């Protein structure tokens, strides 16, 4: 668009040469995503605080499981599956970082590899999570310990599913239509979400699986 600047004494600032997208914190969508993560972080903090609030009501945490023989006096959650999850999620950061960095160079092959591998790991984590609920020993409706731990794991599972949907849709887009500026930025934003979901799992691993053993 040209401007007939001769008609006016007003200075016209022409921004038509500015880029049409941005890859980092200058992008509005980056901020939108960051604020949504603030919302979700508040949510996890409140549910985590509730976990410790409930703990004050118990002489023993987790409470003994007495509806079976032999009675379990200290039924701490089993570590195996949760630890595998932790390792997988921490490992998934590597392909995500590769995809994230490759977006800056518009290296389509690397983005495909990174986003695809992360997606596979994500699906594996979701699959394991369904079995992992059994590690908690209690069911959600046995007592408040069961309720709060199932809720924490369930909320994280929900985020894993949303995250994998997001990454999956990006992945399909790149496979079909190739990598463009906007979707490269979107993958970078998805990567921020990915790191956040991994960080939340580290927190939940410490709270749900380690704290009843050591605190």
């Amino acid at each position: 668009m040209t401007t007939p600047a001769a008609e006016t004494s007003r200075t016209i600032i022409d921004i038509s040469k500015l880029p049409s997208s941005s890859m980092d914190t200058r992008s509005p969508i980056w901020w939108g995503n960051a604020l949504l993560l603030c919302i979700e972080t508040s949510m996890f903090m409140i549910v985590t605080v509730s976990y410790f609030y409930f703990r004050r009501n118990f002489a023993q945490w987790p409470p003994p499981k007495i509806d079976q023989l032999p009675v379990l006096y200290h039924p701490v959650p089993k570590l195996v599956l949760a630890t595998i999850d932790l390792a997988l999620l921490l490992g998934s950061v590597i392909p995500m970082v590769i995809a994230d960095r490759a977006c800056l160079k518009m290296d389509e092959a690397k983005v495909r590899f990174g986003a695809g591998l992360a997606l596979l790991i994500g699906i594996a984590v979701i699959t394991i999570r369904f079995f992992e609920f059994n590690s908690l020993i209690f069911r959600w409706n046995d007592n408040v310990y069961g309720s709060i731990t199932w809720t924490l794991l369930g909320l994280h599972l929900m985020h894993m599913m949303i995250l994998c949907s997001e990454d999956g849709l990006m992945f399909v887009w790149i496979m079909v239509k190739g990598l463009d500026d906007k979707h490269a930025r979107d993958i970078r934003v998805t990567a921020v979400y990915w790191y956040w979901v991994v960080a939340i799992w580290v927190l939940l691993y410490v709270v749900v699986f380690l704290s009843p053993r050591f605190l």
Partner: protein
Amino acid sequence: MTVPQTTFGSPEALMRDADLAQLHETWSRPRGLWGWLVTTNHKDIAERYIVTAFIFFILAGILAVIMRIQLAVPENHFVGPDLYNQIFTVHGTTMMFLFAVPIMEAFALYLVPLMVGTRNVAFPRLNAFGYFTYLAGGLQLWGALLANTGPDTGWFAYVPLSGPAFAPGKRVDVWADMVTTTEISALVGAVEIIVTVFKQRAVGMSLNRIPVYVWAMVVTSFMIIFAMPAVMTASGFLPMDRMPHVNTHFFNPAEGGDALLYQHVFWFFGHPEVYIIFIPATGFVSTIITTFSRRPIFGYIPIILSLIATGFIGFGLWVHHMFATPVPNLGQSFFTAASMMIAIPAGVQIFCWIATLWGGKPVLKMPLVWVLGFIALFVLGGLTGIMLASIPIDLQVHDTYFVVAHFHYVLIGGAVFPLFGAVYYWFPKMTGRMMSEKLGLWHFWLFFIGFNMTFFPMHLLGLHGMTRRIYTYLPETGWGMLNHIASSGALFMGLGVLVFLYNALVSMRRGEVAGENPWGAATLEWTTTSPPPKYNYALLPTVRGRYPLWENFAQTPLVSGLSTDKREVLSTSILDAQPEHRYEIGTDSILPLLMGIVTGIFFVVLVFTPWIVPICAGGWFVVMAIWFWIGTGQPQEKHKAHEYHEPRSPGEPGLSLGSDANPSPQT
């Protein structure tokens, strides 16, 4: 096409007709009903929010009148106890969740993009989705009330009363799901406002030049982001406890749950909520006082700092709603101190407003009249607030009409009065016509007198021991006369609102034509036509100070170069508002409505069965996938390697506002 003329240099006149026509075409919505369903223009959405919120205000007001009729005389049988419980619960819930918060965000969604000089909010489709979700929540609550399934456990639905043991049926589930629905919409609005302010301000609008109202909305939005997740936790735990086949034990003491946790989580949201309603109102007040005192506001920086301080301290007060519970004494003392401390930033603001009026030449138009009413009533509400912050007094009057009087003074005096002022103030911008000053005065005095008649006697009733939420009382209590006065006052308030509605409807068609800046105000929204074009500004404005229209705006540079054939906005840097990049935003789309419908269905069916979760998750995924796949429908740009575009240095020609760009106004 006709070019709207403005006295501020008519940016439209600087554009070629073909460009202007294309700009108009790009930003217009499709014709007819379809266009109405798919629009994502922030002004369309905000107008809808405002109208819907006022409808809920009137509906909840009708409930209030019914309550006052019931209480007008002792041993009345106008409504029975069960219906009365539903009525006061739905009244409070509607006023808080469907009127107060949404209308404050609605005004911001209308005004913030205009005030910061951009064309639309950052995520227009998300914005439309927020509205439809809010509407779904409102319909759910009121549909339930009409089906005699209205919630009946008070607007905060304390357990154990609202738990599965004492509240069988679906009433509380309706309440909880409706809360979650409307909070989603509030959170969406908050994200919109923050990102729009952070990333889309006019070139030159550095942090210290943002209008006070916009600052107020940023603080409010941050409070929403950190407070609303708490109530969503509460409104998530509660139905999980109640729902068949789920039956968790969060609030069930028999299985280790804790009823007091509900109060903590609820009030961790509930107290900031008061400031989420009040801070936007202070933004209205600061704006109106500046304009009608004809001078820059006294103490811009102290006012902004007070807003931010209020935002922080507001999170440290929640336990003062729980003084009658076994919270440790030391903790209670801390919350007493915090409750008194928050009077400091409120006081700073009030003194700044008085100083501005004192040092200016106040023009007594309707917006300012409402603001003066606000100052008087809010000081009264604040005084009883300080009284209630003291534990011994609080224990004495807890759950009495003294508390009812206090929070109505704070919420109506503190928020509804400035809100009416804001309506009178921005009505010309939104409709192009002025509201009648004469009818405005009738509205004000009927409402002001009615308000004091209704709520002042409640202080005395509370001190005499009348408890909240009773549907009737005995003649021997001696409360009859004061209740009778209160009920008469409610009728005056109702009349005032009717005058207001009449004024608004008539003025919309036959009011005096406003022109672009009828009040001689200083902020950017008054440079564009009334009502503003769909694209807000043909050429984006820039600013060199806090009061652009009082600082030789006709000589301020304008920004050109945004595409006219797609919906582009300019993204600027967070601190200094230097141009960074152009940014294409979403176009009109039916998907937000579909998404809203899926969400609405989800929360209605969730009242009955948890199995809706996987079904609607599928629905959301399908809509989101389409949403993602279609995008904005524009071809995607591809570059070999993405360059990092550093913002050009201010000295470079073309992007600078010049070295005289800092005539920082003295306050």
